[in-house]
């Protein structure tokens, strides 16, 4: 029992420390301007690491991710807008590196699909409810003979 308890504590410790280890992966550089720093934080969470594709730039310790982060910092410092920075990286690595796809005509179907599905669902629901209501009305109608 005691061994079981000890290993549970160990497991808990490891699990609690695991996210902290991942946080260390990102270089501890801060930009002089807190506004730029805030934009930097947002950008590195929205962009994919090009090597380990299911990580964001913010939590990847791959060399190329560090290089891209450095590139983003220098572009921010040079006064580039978020759109310019994203545009530059998309032109080099394709739109795949954006975790959030762009709003564009090409992606219109992607963004509108949830709404279309919702409206279809509502339309189907309305029709079903109307039909049921009609059935209830007909029950009281003496003219209708049930077969």
């Amino acid at each position, binding site marked *: 029992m005691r061994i079981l308890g000890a290993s549970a504590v160990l497991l808990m410790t490891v699990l609690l420390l695991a996210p902290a280890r991942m946080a260390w992966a990102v270089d501890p550089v801060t930009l002089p301007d807190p506004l730029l720093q805030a934009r930097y934080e947002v950008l590195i969470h929205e962009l994919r690491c*090009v*090597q380990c*594709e*299911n990580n964001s730039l913010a939590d990847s310790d*791959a*060399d*190329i991710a*560090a*290089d*891209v982060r*450095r*590139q983003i910092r220098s572009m921010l410092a040079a006064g580039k807008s978020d759109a310019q920075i994203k545009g530059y*990286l*998309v*032109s*080099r*690595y*394709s739109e*795949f*590196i954006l975790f959030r796809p762009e709003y564009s005509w090409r992606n219109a179907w992607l963004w509108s699909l949830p709404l279309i599905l919702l409206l279809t669902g509502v339309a189907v629901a309305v029709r079903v409810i109307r039909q049921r209501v009609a059935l209830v009305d007909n029950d009281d109608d003496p003219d209708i003979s049930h077969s």
Partner: protein
Amino acid sequence: MKPRFLVPVAVFAALVVVLAVGINHSHEVGVLKSPLVGHEIPDWELPVLTDPAKSLGSRDLKGQWYVLNYWGAWCYSCRIEHPLLLQAQREGRVQIVGVDWVADNADENAAALEMLSRQGNPYSHVVTDRDGTTAIDLGIAGAPESLLVNPQGVIVYKEPGIITPEIWRREFLSRLPPQSAVPAPGAGGS
């Protein structure tokens, strides 16, 4: 009345088709499709490994076919690729320009020179990318990675990993003009 029950079935079948097409067309993980292929290579200029005072760039290579190969002495997969590059250099169909990617390896340049002298040098030129700025500009995600550039400076193919003999034949040699023998400086007697 009956056909109405077929509507959900039809919708479901359509969904299956859409998803199947989507899955079949999605690229493999680790293989980003480069938007640069088919376009002119972004201008690059990097210091020469053996003489950092000199530099070499896309403008110097205009008018020639070349393979731009990103590698590093720290990169294990590059060592697997190395014999193929040596073989390709002996064939002499196209020159291979090496970019030594320093990444965060403290004495990368020394290690790179040592690797080349020990295992052979397949490159007509070797340049150095210190901070990865050029790597990003060329859409490189990791090493090894290779670009095939034509005399007009257009990237005609990108290999996002190790070039195997099969890939070399199918993707590189097939795109080169027949017998465009470019004598690579530093190549052994041919």
